[in-house]
């Protein structure tokens, strides 16, 4: 749930920020294994 007190544009930016950060986290986590397999 994104903060409802901010505007639509900010909510969209927050959604993108979270999406990219989650992608980075998953990439690093899986990369640690893939490097060794």
């Amino acid at each position, binding site marked *: *749930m*994104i*903060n409802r*007190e*901010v505007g639509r544009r*900010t909510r969209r*930016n*927050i959604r993108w*920020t*979270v999406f990219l*950060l*989650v992608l*980075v*986290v*998953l990439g*690093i*986590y*899986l*990369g*640690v*294994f893939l490097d*060794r397999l």
Partner: protein
Amino acid sequence: MTATTQDHAHHADEPTGFKRWLVTTNHKDIGSMYLLFSLAMFLVGGAMALVIRAELFQPGLQVVDPYFFNQMTTMHALVMIFGAVMPAFTGLANWMIPLMVGAPDMALPRMNNWSFWLLPFGFAILLSTLFMPGGGPAGGWTMYPPLMLQTGTAFPFVIFAIHVLGISSIMGSINVIATILNMRAPGMTLMKMPLFVWTWLITAYLMIAVMPVLAGAITMLLTDQYFGTSFFSAAGGGDPVLYQHIFWFFGHPEVYILILPAFGIISTIIPAFARKPLFGYSSMVYATASIAFLSFIVWAHHMFTVGMPLAGQLFFMYATMLIAVPTGVKVFNWVATMWRGAMTFETPMLFALAFVFLFTIGGFSGLMLAIAPADFQYHDTYFVVAHFHYVLVTGAVFAILAAAYYWLPKWTGHMYSERLGQWHFWLSVIFVNVLFFPQHFLGLAGMPRRIPDYSVQFADWNMVSSIGGFGFGFAQLIFVWLLYKCIRGGEKAEARAWEGAEGLEWEVPSPAPHHTFDTPPVIR
């Protein structure tokens, strides 16, 4: 910087009692929960430290058996790092970042709640391992294989608990980054942000980068133990040293995760009590970013004695020494901020000043440890223990205490007892040096760390260190009493509790209303 604010009264339809705390999405509630949880863990980890110091009071085995001693050294570290220091900073971030950037709350309030409640869950699992058959983890907080794989029933529980704590940290970091990047008040450019916000932004990126690395390493431990893989087993074609590389690729940036927000706190408090703007704001920002970058390329200085090519030793030695440059910039800027300032010495300033002196001692012993040939002598001795406790106790913990004293009036609406605060500071600063300074001598004389018994030549300084330990531990009870009294009542705090305090958080009343900045402030 000027601002206009608009506050609303507490919403009548919000739940009360325990349910309020369970389901709250308010950044101030969640910040308070983080801070109180951190205090509880600080006391639990402190009790474990006192078990260690009681055993080491005299040579010989007298208080606990060696296996339990090893559990205490391991759990003390895990509790203090993941339970006390990191949640304290996250609590401060929750409370202060929205107030400092003029945002109504964090970007993801429900995830914020979830991030917090994972912590008691994770620690319940971790601490419960002490009561399992075979006891808790005893191989050190670094969890090196193959030793860690000899842990009994507790092993999968420890791995699961650390995954949970890591997920909590990652979610907290995502929230901090999303809030700072997207919810700053109009006019607050990045280079107008308070230093505490800057240091937290950089810390959050560090966490995003390295917590998944730790998770990967310990997942591999789990699969080596239960699923037939051989990532770290030489017999199966793996390499136990690989674990150390992966662990310290997480572990060294972790050290900066524990200290960068402290730099932000000190950069906030010193200007307030010197009544001067911070000297060299932009150089502080660039120094913080430089330290964060360098933290990724120095990990193998923890492994000089494991064996590595000469070129590797030289690279990691010089890269480590480079960190002294941006750190020196910071110390210079703090001193320059105080230069010819109208200084007063209330408790937050005293802790901040002690930080500047004592953290620098920890920095210097770190430089000594960075010298590869010297490290062959110091490695795994009490010199290392002295070094990182100067960095983490007189560094991180003192900064957290300074922050608590500085912002308590804003959180509670009451001024704390300055008399008790001064007692707390002076007893802490005396006993912490009695506790940790002799450990330099013990280490240089060759006393190994993580050992419950020692040669009689180390007896005197161990006794002194233990006296310091108990003194420091009991001095913290003054803080608990002061905190209780401050929450219950006391002299009413003004909106701007400190004469020299600057920033948006001082524009709202004390205590800060439940909802702030529903209308964004205007930054000019």
